[in-house]
């Protein structure tokens, strides 16, 4: 059997539309882009509070339901946590990404949102709030490490799935 494979060389040549040096983009351009993103940190700190409030709202909403009926609300909570995970590191809050990632993995692996599981979620939401309240930039230094160790201990104590 013979298969036909067609090769199209650079069907969308973008080079023709830009002025561009031979040596690639230099460090100045990247540094400028990084500076502009870093300047958005203030905006991030404003909008992440809205996301944290959403997490709390979803948590409260789920906690009022019987354990068997919590899944749909927890999926909504997961979506917000996933956004927080994706944004933290972009704006210098890597610890937000680490904690939100752990929360996402926990929710993904959880098959029963019983009260113990809800406690684990609550602790992670509070940890995220603490990072922003105390402005724990980067990985948060010593306080950040203590926070992560504490969250690991909560997961182990609960015997529930967390971040690998």
């Amino acid at each position, binding site marked *: *059997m*013979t*298969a*036909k*494979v*067609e*090769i*199209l*060389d*650079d*069907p*969308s*040549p*973008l*080079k023709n*539309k*830009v*002025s*561009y*040096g*031979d*040596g*690639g*983009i*230099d460090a*100045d*351009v*990247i540094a*400028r*882009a*990084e500076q*502009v*993103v870093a300047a*958005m940190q203030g*905006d*991030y700190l404003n*909008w992440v509070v809205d996301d944290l409030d959403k997490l709390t709202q979803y948590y409260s909403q789920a906690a009022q339901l019987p354990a068997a009926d919590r899944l749909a609300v927890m999926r909504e909570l997961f979506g917000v946590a*996933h*956004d927080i*995970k*994706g*944004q*933290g*590191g*972009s704006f210098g809050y*890597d610890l937000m*990404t680490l904690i939100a990632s752990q929360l996402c993995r926990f929710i993904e692996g959880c098959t029963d949102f019983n009260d113990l599981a809800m406690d684990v979620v609550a602790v992670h939401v509070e940890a995220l709030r603490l990072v922003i309240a105390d402005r724990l930039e980067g990985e948060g230094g010593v306080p950040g490490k203590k926070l992560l160790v504490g969250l690991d201990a909560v997961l182990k104590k609960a015997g529930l799935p967390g971040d690998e």
Partner: protein
Amino acid sequence: MNGLNGAALKVMVVEDNQHFRLLIRTVLQTLGITQVEEARDGADALARLHHFAADFVIVDWKMEPMDGIAFAHHIRWSPDSPNPTLPIIMVTGYSEPALLAEARDAGVNEFLTKPISAKGLVGRITSLIAAPRPFVRSETYFGPDRRRRQLPFSGPEQRSQSGYQGPVLVRS
């Protein structure tokens, strides 16, 4: 200085989170790219691409009702596609190898994991511009060549030993 003036480029950002859209738009502006159209999901983007001839798109994976993979598949294969060879950069919070392979097989050009950095995004855009890969069209795949490097191989070719006679390469 080897800067990049992207003033002539038109870019569509497909992302359901307004903050991510702002972040990406801001990085684009540092490259001189100001012709930016935003869409909230894949279906919204497809509709907008019929009147906004983007030079490339930056698309999130997880969106509703149409996610980034469905969008890429539509762009590459649909008879209604506004541009089957449109370069696609996919941005996502998921980095599992199986998901990366799914994006690659859907014909995505470049992949970027959140949290994104300015350096990472600029690097992917630079790759599209300075090191574009040829497109491959077969019965089951249409998109950029999935082999980023051509490596020499001295062993026996499995396909020749099994009687496989193809593929026939046609360079357009």
